[in-house]
């Protein structure tokens, strides 16, 4: 365990409403999180906001930052575990897809690790073509695809504390891709599939907290926000790896430039879901900020910097116009 030297970050919940009149600006300089000889990326807030999890280079391993003490510890050293791991709604567990190599062939396994005890629960055999795990709202059920079919598994975890609604996934639904196409399933009826954008392959789909919108990237196109009820899509322009604000009114994402070989520039952007208000949060020429993730209380965004492997936490300032 290693002590980090940066000021304790105090989260102050700021009610966010009326986004049409709101602008979002960085509040002060971002806090820097790093550890000597370690390269970190892809931060993800715990639902309770008291921890930040992130991975190492090439998604190897998971580390946890305790925001109250500034301590960092390694939770997992599994290859592949860091790619889109999923916090349980109660913030006690993290589910991930680990990568194993047997006779040169990669096999995936869905596993859950308890953050406190680091005890691992293995939920699947090592198989090919396993999708990423997603938690159900009940904190017990885990969903993943295998050979493009959706499966659910009971983790056997008993819920020990009352789950707060604002930390829960959308009501009874999960979003995933099947044959690279966007789909939503009812978690109590995994065979009831709702399909969207039938002619478009997508990546990085995320369901809004209220379940009404989906943000995703077209395979080789723009970042879009899809209204499920109306089918209307809003094109946010070039953007990658979207993440929702907790109130579901904003999307943060990264905008990158490259020459086909290396990244030349990258910044974190915030956009209203109608695409009418867009802000560059980072605005640096020399840093390559990537992989944003909004804190559960809406007051900060965590992201990483590609060249240094440093995680940043940027506090946000909401202003009414």
């Amino acid at each position, binding site marked *: 365990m290693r002590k980090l030297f940066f000021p304790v970050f105090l989260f102050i919940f700021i009610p966010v409403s009326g986004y049409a009149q709101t602008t979002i600006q960085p509040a002060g300089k971002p806090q820097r999180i790093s550890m000597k000889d370690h*390269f970190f*990326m892809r931060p993800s807030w715990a639902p309770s906001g008291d921890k930040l999890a992130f991975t190492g*280079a*090439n*998604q190897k391993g998971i580390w946890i930052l305790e925001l109250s003490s500034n301590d960092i510890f390694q939770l997992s050293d599994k*290859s*592949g575990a860091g*790619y*889109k791991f999923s916090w349980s709604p109660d913030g006690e567990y993290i589910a991930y*897809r680990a*990568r194993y*190599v047997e006779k*040169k*062939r*990669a096999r*995936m396994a869905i596993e859950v690790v308890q953050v406190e005890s680091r005890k691992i629960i293995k939920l699947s055999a090592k198989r*090919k*073509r*396993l*999708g*990423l795990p997603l938690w159900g709202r009940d904190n017990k059920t885990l969903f993943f695809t295998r050979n493009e079919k959706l499966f659910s598994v009971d983790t056997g975890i008993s819920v020990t504390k009352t789950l707060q609604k604002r930390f829960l996934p959308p009501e009874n639904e999960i979003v995933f*891709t099947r044959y*690279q196409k966007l789909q939503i399933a009812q978690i109590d009826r995994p065979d009831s599939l709702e399909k969207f954008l039938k002619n478009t392959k997508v*990546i*990085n789909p995320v369901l809004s907290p209220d379940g009404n919108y989906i943000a995703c*990237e077209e*395979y*080789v*196109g723009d970042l879009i926000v899809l209204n499920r009820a109306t089918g209307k899509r809003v094109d946010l322009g*070039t953007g*990658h*790896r979207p993440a929702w604000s907790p109130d579901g009114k904003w999307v943060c994402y*990264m905008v*990158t430039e*490259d020459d*086909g*070989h*290396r*990244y030349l520039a990258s910044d974190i952007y915030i956009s209203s879901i109608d695409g009418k208000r867009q802000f560059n949060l980072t605005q640096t020429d020399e840093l390559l900020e*990537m992989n944003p993730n909004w804190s559960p209380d809406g007051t900060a965004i965590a992201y990483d910097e*590609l*060249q240094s492997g440093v995680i940043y936490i940027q506090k946000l300032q909401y202003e009414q116009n």
Partner: protein
Amino acid sequence: MKKFVTISILLILTISFFISPLQAQDLSGLSICIDPGHGINTPNQGPTGLTEHIINVRVARFLESYLKSANVDTVILTVDENSVEPGLSAREDIANQNGVDWFHSIHHNAWNGKLRYTLVLYEEIPYQKVPEWPGESDTMSYLMGFNLWQGYRTTHYSVRGDWSFYGGANGGFNLGVLNDLQMPGELSEATFHDNPGEEVKLRNLNFLQFEGLALYKSFLQYYDAGNWGFAPLGGIIYNKKTSKPIDGATVVLHPSEQTYKTDNYHNGFYSFPELQAGKYVVEVTVPGYEAGIDSIQVAENEFNFLDFYLYPHEAPIVKNSQPAEMDSAFSPYGMIEIEFNREMNTQSVKEALSVEPDFPYVLLWSPDHEKLRIDPKPVLLFGMRYIVTIDTMAHDIFNHPLDGNGDGIVGDPFQLQFTTQKIDLSRPQVLATEPFDLDSSVAISELVRVTFNKPLNEAELTENNIYIRGPMRKKIKINILINNTPSGRSILTLVPLEPLTPATRYNVTLVKAITDSNLIEMEKHFLFQFYTEEVQHNLLVIDNLNTGLNNWSDPMQSLRSQNFDPDSTSWLPDIQLLQDSSRVARLNYSFHADGLLDVSLTGYLEPFRDLQTEDEIGVYLFGDSSLTRFRFYFKDSADSLEAGAWHTIDWYGWKAVHEKIGIDSIFAFDGGTGSLDGQISLAGFQLKGTEGNEGVLFLDDFYLAGKSITSIETKKETTRPKSHILVQSYPNPFSRKLNHTGVSILFKIPNEMGGSPVNVSIYNTLGQKVRELVNQKLQPGQYENFWNGLDEYNQNVPAGVYFFRVQVGNLTETRRLIILN
């Protein structure tokens, strides 16, 4: 958009048509993501406008089809023919989201329009410069590098970590498309699409199919998933006279009777990609050219090539002769050489040849029957005028009569007049030695060099006639190398095969029996002595370059390099034998103005990391007496670059060049301070030349001599690549008088190298190939070949030291061989 979709469908259908159902190769259970680099908006076009993205996608389609034919579960292409430039993160996320087993990004390189080598890059951990996916992406990269090099016949292949490749001594950055992957992957640049000669080939779908095959083969090899099950055959049809590819050729394959018509893109390429192994006859016809016909044994699971050099309908002429017309000082020991511009009917030339005054001779032809050697028996007379005539009866293999005076009209004889030199009865003399006699501070890394005033007879340059004695009058083991300089001198280099002992006297003896090329002996024995310096230094070879140049960057990629001619500049592995090395580095250089070539150290050579005061960094450098200048440069704790002094290359042959840390002068360089502070590491070396400077240098055995080096033998052993070929020779030395069969050369091909190209060749001490014994693909097993001491013209080679090199795939073993009369 509709047009794009139509083109895409047509392209996919066309590529599918090229690929017939294959034998069962098993890649089942795997998911592979193929990433054709760039997009339709990327302006990186070749000289005639072919965009890289289109090439990349076409190759990807071939690879996709082959992988599917081997039952791969899923093949995902990140982009297609119509894609604009998608972001690098999107390409990675497509692979990550789908949880594929492997990621491969297809690119084609561009630099200055002159290069054509294969480059494969894998991801490295920043600063540490070690593979991010050890044993996975680096292994696959080497397979791909080798296979692409074989399939495209590029000049060479280079496999590098991305962090090391992009940047100087400290590395630069990771490839954006690799650094966030959840699985191993790599990026290939099979060749250079901005090279005009390569671009015209890249327009041909069948040519791209070979790239798809090479990548496909790499996956099969990596996953031990079987072989292709067929034997691709390809080749290029050239104009024999201009060496340029010919359009519009019709190629017919017998017995299958398949026909291929070459395209009109000026590449001359033809292929039959999915043949069954066996012997085929290939017939080529082109209007205005002589027809070509040849046969080839096509091997399964290998790229097979058969090129044709077709003669246009023209008369044969003499291109060159040795001696030149009216030469007045031709050596009477020399052979007369006449080079024609095309393959001759040897019998007709023999009948048409006459010499005046007459002398006995033997005629020798080069294998392509273009070069004729007249070998006087025993020798010509001193101070005599000769006339060689080839009359109009001589004709080429197509019965075109000789155009002897080259005026474009047939029917003239060829005539060559020359005079031999007057007899030289002077004795060979030593002009200089390095170290000089009684030199008392000789570094233990030094080589001993002796300069003679005239060419020597190599047969007498044996360990009996030349030796170095150390303590207790014990002879030390040495290699004896001889190099004749352009000014007619001979340089003997004596290479100690074990480090010299500090503070020790050594005596060098050159026995009177050494003769010059006229077999005249030295007047007396020549002796000199020297003392090694007293410091307690040990010597450690850090990079013997036997495994290639992976630790060093290509000087043409360095931003510090300037005013060099890219056409005549290259940095390649080669053989130019020193000590027990099988490989050296060859630096061809040419400057069109005052210029510089910069080679930075990108690999991780541990002892170079923390140099101490009085440590000596050195390299053995084969000079060309060009007066170009060489220097090392270093990096210190302040992260600044500091350079050593320039060494003017005023010598010919091998010599140690070294820099002593803290003792020799240091100069500020590229932001440096002019002093070395703190942790010091070697960062590279530079060559500086002036307008018109051109030549070739060889480098071998970068070494460190220092107090801090403790276990020489142990460390040396660990830096040496392990042999898998197990080469032996017997008897060695080999006496032609006692043994008529020849020296036996035994080697073993391990199972994992089965089917690899094998080359066994004999080299003299100048590094010149004397005879090739084997050049074919061989299956695993033990093989024995005999060399009877004859060169490629079936002439006895002079007695002396030779080397035989066995190359199996990318493994090489070299051994010394002594031939006695």
